[in-house]
């Protein structure tokens, strides 16, 4: 995490005897374990694409309920109802505070103009809340981090290409948050169709200059760069989610059972769920949090502070001209 100096690097010397400062890693770990980690993920996509199911599958627990409309007289949800659900998951003594933000009603109406505004506003609100807490004179020792670290964008598996509304929303979202696109319900595409669809989607995203996570930075070493390359080749992830278990070869696995076959969610040949899970939780979890803080938050912060400075300068000017 320390920024490496571009100019003269101090010489590396090894001590004559074992000092013992390498235990700092364990000290940090101990501290962090006590504090726990915070991870905020947002899911964006049309109703019925399997967002809630995927979250439940990712974290292997029933965290959120599907928000589909099941009764005839309930109204379809509006996008203004963005709520965050909090859960704490424990694994090997590591506490993960998980915030899941669902966006019901996105893209469901007949007229979807502006349905992305509440979402972008929510993301910016989290940044601004953090900024305000940071800027107060007497601030807490540890500011609770509600900024969105990752946004999973669900693409409809049409097999053709991205819809106009998807392109607009992706553009807006990529500016404020780390966006990871996934192809929902990919069990409706055969492997050839999947490959063609992915190509088209990536071409569309590149044409519209939408920056997708993972970003490359200077300090990454060879291995990490290669890993990022591999991830980028696989984007968008073609996934299938399932909370139900099916017995395959004597072991219960999460799968979907049809009359003509069983789709094993954890099988790499069937879908790319494993890659997504590893990407999100095993390799890039820390990086996601860091990127949010260092890139998205910083740009928001600088914009806000510059605007503040300008407005205060203007106020001073007008006050001066008024008094003069």
């Amino acid at each position, binding site marked *: 995490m320390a920024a490496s100096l571009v100019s003269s690097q101090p010489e590396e010397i090894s001590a004559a005897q074992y000092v013992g400062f390498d235990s700092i890693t364990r000290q940090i770990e101990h501290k962090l374990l006590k504090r726990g980690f915070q991870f905020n993920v947002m899911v964006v996509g049309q109703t019925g694409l399997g967002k809630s199911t995927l979250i439940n599958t990712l974290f292997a627990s029933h965290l959120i309920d599907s928000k589909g409309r*099941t009764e*005839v007289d309930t109204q379809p949800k509006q996008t203004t109802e963005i709520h965050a659900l909090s859960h704490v998951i424990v694994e090997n003594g590591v506490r993960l505070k998980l915030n899941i933000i669902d966006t019901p009603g996105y893209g*469901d109406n007949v007229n979807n103009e502006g349905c992305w505004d509440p979402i972008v506003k929510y993301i910016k609100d989290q940044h601004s809340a953090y900024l305000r807490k940071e800027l107060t004179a007497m601030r807490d020792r540890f500011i609770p981090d509600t900024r969105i670290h990752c946004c999973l964008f669900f693409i409809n598996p*049409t*097999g*053709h*290409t991205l819809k106009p509304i998807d392109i607009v929303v992706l553009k807006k979202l990529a500016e404020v948050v780390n966006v990871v696109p996934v192809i929902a319900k990919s069990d409706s595409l055969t492997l050839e169709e999947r490959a063609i669809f992915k190509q088209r989607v990536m071409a569309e995203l590149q044409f519209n200059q939408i920056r997708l996570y993972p970003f490359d930075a200077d300090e990454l070493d060879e291995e990490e760069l290669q890993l990022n390359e591999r991830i980028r080749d696989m984007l968008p992830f073609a996934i299938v989610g399932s909370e139900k278990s099916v017995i395959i070869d004597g072991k219960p696995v999460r799968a979907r059972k049809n009359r003509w076959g069983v789709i094993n969610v954890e099988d790499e040949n069937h879908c790319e769920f494993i890659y997504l899970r590893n990407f999100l939780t095993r390799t890039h979890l820390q990086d996601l949090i860091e990127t949010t803080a260092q890139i998205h938050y910083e740009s928001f912060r600088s914009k806000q502070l510059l605007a503040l400075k300008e407005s205060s300068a203007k106020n001073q000017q007008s006050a001066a001209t008024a008094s003069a």
Partner: protein
Amino acid sequence: MSEGYYDNAPHSPSANGNGNGSLSYNGDGRSSAVTSPNGGNDTLISSRAISPSAYPVKSEPGVGINGSATAPAQQQPARKKLASWVGFSNLPNQVHRRSVRRGFQFVAMVVGESGLGKSTLINTLFETKLYQPKNIPAPGEDRGKTVQIESISAEIEENGVRLKLTVVDTPGFGDFVNNDESWKPIVDNIEARFDAYLEQENRVNRLKLVDNRVHACIYFIQPTGHSLKPIDIEFMRRLHTKVNLIPVIAKADTMTDDEISLFKQRILADIAHHGIRIFQPPQYENEDEETIQENEEIISKVPFAVVGSDSLVSSPDGRQVRGRAYPWGVIEVDNEDHCDFVKLRQMLVRTHMEELREHTNDVLYENYRTDKLKAMGVAQDESVFKETNPAAKQAEERAMHEAKLAKMEAEMKMVFQQKVQEKEAKLKQSEEELYLRHREMKDALEKQRQELEDKKRRIESGRPLTPEKGSQKKRFGLGK
């Protein structure tokens, strides 16, 4: 049986083909004694018999439904007994030959968001590559702002029967950010086709009627697994009175069995809740068991969960089937266990294509026509519908006739009077004239006489010659 008379009228307006033809004469018909509705003395025996094929059996001469004495007050046509085989039971075959000669026309419309497999399904249904692979717009290419209407036609033939199939596609439906009014071009197109047919009907020469009206509209529902989306409900509400709606669940290989059945339930609940009328295969009383059962099966599967595929894949047991091959299995399109495609094809092509056409013609088109003509101000002549009772009508007519005659008589009398008066007046006038002339003449004569008297005295007194003699003599002649 409770019915007094065996009903001759068709059960529904669209049952003309089947309704009349399904009466048949069978040797072992059931019979029962019923009283005539008149409550009169006649007891009538009516036998009701239906043959298994619902068609009249040709080789049954001499058996018929016993005639019933029609009371003059009833309006049923007289039932006559056949003495020997006439042969009009061959009528359906003649209709069949004529229809085959003419060929059939069918127009289907497919509506749904892009990427739901509409073109593939059409190709699968009619086993022909009607739709070429779609041209996907490149990134940044303009995709248009409104729903387009495109139609493709093909003439296909099977066993000598020609079908002119037209498929109307609606690319762009539901694809924009703002989908308000996206049904408007579709509704306009359907109504334009109705208008074109209406205009054809009003032409002077109506021999060649081309039927381009939309007979069926297949609506593709996205397999969300929850329920209908607002755009689905909005679209169906606007179109169910203008076209036969057949909703299908697209790409049904995404869902498991439970999900499909739950989804279907919710869709039907939504449709009922909003009062949307989708196409229901009509049930007739005279159908045979097999057909009734087929119909019930079809109805139970609505909306159909379909999968389309126009390419062949190898199934796990080595056969070449139409289907989709996944790493976890192969789904066969033609397998009834896997999806409802077979049922959809059955309903659309094999059993109910004619029903769809008839319903469009008899109900949907007629409603549209009535509304349109009313809107144009054409008044309905209600007197056409009054019930006609012959005796009453005759009396009425007679009364009317007599009234007319009386009126004519009065008129003539008046005219006569008038003429008489005129003549009288004229005669009087001429009488007076004559009288006047008579008096004048008399006066003139008197004057002449006086003059003559004078002359006479003069002559007796002196005898002067006057040139008036000649003329006097003449006058005397004239005066007398």
